[in-house]
């Protein structure tokens, strides 16, 4: 119905409650998680199979026999983003099997998780705004459920309320912008909109641009609209923080890329400037506030805001190289920030606290987790042999090419600031403490350790050998630019 990849994920999501009922019968708690893992693996294989065709010519899947166009359009960019989503989804699901074991309600959890991944894949492979908006809301609604999943505690509920109000107001702004766009152009198809908007004379187009940046900015936590993010990331269960920070926020960046470079290409001078200024404010704010945090997950959340700033800088240049850098940074950031949140989750699982003074000295008790956290943290600052360096270098180069050297200088300064809080975490991990509190702390269970270890390996691997990811990102960026 939606093409093989989406079909598989939606099928596994909807049959998960039946499996959950079987779980009660067979007394095997992990069944739902293992079933979801199987679904994501099959979706990965399907994605690989369609990828070779989609690179040469975009794959079009019509969704309705109605008189208007509503279809999925899978091109290189969709493949690149969907690959990131499925990979992070796989790691997060594997991790959740043990982490969420004691929570109960496993079928609901895995159904929402799979539907959220399906929503994101649908967003990136939509060919018109009608399809786009439906999948966008699917992603948003399941993320509201997941954030306040641990509803017996006050923290997730409060964070969920904030997230829901801000994010659904953002969605409404997007819908209003779409209605104006529909009135202006008479269609919501990306390609036809791009043709219709080539020479806009109407003043309304500025209102549409503003509402779109506002709506997507809420989801991707651009500076004045970021206030939900630290609360949500620190209150949500750690695997959910990992997937929210790694890919859900970045779906907003993808939407900004797609919308600006297809529909608003004629206003490039305007949005380039707006995004450059927003990007500088966002990254500086995120990194400086992260320096003041004492809570590990809250610190990582502010660092995410900083990285959103780097991606926006790549988008702001508007060149193929800048877009490729932003896309590659989405991929790399998903790996390193996802891994950092999973490591923070492992500490919470074993120690029960997440403040920096509570995890002091834990590096000696949980060496594998601490090493993996160290690798991904250094990647976050952009240290050379790791993957963060490659994408930050590409974004920096693209800003110089586009003649925005001040933007590039800000990126470098911010990398230096981010080293400050990373070193604070490393110091806390290695500290020797007098108390014997952490004496009986063991290494995290093997099934949680496996995704952490694999992601840390990938962070190293894509730092030493970035060619495959870089080529894919270049190809994805070129589809985005040619269409405009």
């Amino acid at each position, binding site marked *: 119905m939606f093409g093989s990849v989406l079909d598989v994920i939606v099928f596994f999501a909807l049959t998960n409650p039946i499996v959950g009922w079987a779980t009660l019968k067979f007394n095997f708690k992990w069944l739902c998680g293992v079933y979801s893992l199987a679904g994501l693996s099959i979706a990965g294989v399907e994605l690989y199979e369609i990828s070779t065709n989609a690179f040469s010519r975009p794959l079009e899947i019509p969704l309705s026999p109605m008189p208007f166009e509503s279809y999925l359009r899978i091109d290189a960019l969709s493949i690149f983003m969907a690959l990131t989503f499925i990979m992070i989804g796989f790691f997060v699901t594997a991790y959740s099997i043990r982490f969420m074991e004691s929570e109960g309600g496993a079928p609901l959890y895995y159904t929402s998780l799979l539907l959220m991944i399906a929503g994101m894949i649908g967003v990136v492979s939509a060919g018109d705004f009608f399809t786009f908006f439906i999948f966008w*809301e699917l992603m948003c609604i399941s993320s509201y459920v997941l954030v*306040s999943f641990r509803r017996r505690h006050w923290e997730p509920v*409060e964070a969920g309320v904030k997230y829901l109000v801000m994010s659904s107001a953002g969605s409404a702004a997007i819908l209003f912008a779409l209605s104006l766009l529909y009135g202006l152009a008479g269609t919501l198809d990306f390609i036809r909109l791009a043709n219709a908007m080539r020479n806009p004379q109407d003043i309304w187009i500025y209102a549409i641009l503003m509402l779109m940046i506002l709506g997507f900015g809420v989801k991707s936590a651009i500076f004045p609209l970021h206030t939900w993010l*630290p609360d949500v990331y620190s209150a949500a269960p750690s695997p959910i923080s990992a997937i929210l920070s790694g890919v859900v926020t970045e779906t907003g960046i993808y939407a900004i890329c797609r919308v600006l470079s297809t529909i608003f290409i004629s206003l490039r001078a305007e949005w380039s400037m707006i995004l450059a200024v927003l990007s500088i404010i966002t990254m500086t704010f995120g990194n400086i506030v992260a320096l003041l945090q004492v809570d590990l997950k809250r610190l990582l959340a502010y660092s995410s805001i900083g990285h959103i700033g780097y991606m926006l800088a790549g988008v702001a240049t508007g060149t193929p190289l800048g877009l490729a850098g932003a896309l590659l940074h989405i991929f790399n950031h998903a790996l390193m920030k996802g891994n950092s949140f999973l490591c923070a989750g492992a500490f919470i699982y074993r120690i029960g606290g997440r403040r920096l003074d509570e995890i002091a000295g834990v590096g000696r008790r949980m060496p594998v987790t601490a090493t993996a956290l160290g690798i991904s943290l250094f990647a976050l600052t952009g240290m050379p042999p790791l993957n963060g360096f490659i994408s930050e270098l590409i974004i920096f180069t693209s800003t110089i090419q586009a003649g925005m050297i001040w933007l590039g200088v800000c990126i470098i300064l911010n990398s230096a600031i981010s080293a400050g809080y990373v070193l604070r975490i490393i110091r806390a991990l290695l500290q020797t403490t007098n108390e014997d509190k952490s004496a009986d702390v063991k290494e995290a269970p093997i099934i949680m350790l496996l995704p952490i270890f694999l992601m840390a390996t990938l962070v190293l691997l894509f730092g030493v050998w970035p060619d495959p990811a870089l080529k894919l990102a270049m190809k994805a960026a070129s589809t985005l630019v040619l269409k405009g």
Partner: protein
Amino acid sequence: MLDCYVMFSAVLFIIGVYCLTTKRNMIRMILGIEILINAANLNFIVFSAFRAAGFIDPLGHSIVMISVGLAGCVTAVALAITIYAYKHYGTIDIRRLSRLRG
């Protein structure tokens, strides 16, 4: 005629934003979100009716159908979370939900 309708939906959108920014009751905020979505829905209906004389574009109507359903889902989740917030805090005043700091 088209101008009047678009003006009306713009006013409706502004009312929704006003409701979200000034109201402190969570139920009222959910209603504010509904008003925002309905402003957009009205716009879709109007534009689909005014595209050509004697012709109504089905695209606008389909979007409104779907959007009404999605708004229902959002409201359902929002009300569920509101119930849990009431259980934890004993109030639905959004100002009291400010224990998360930093």
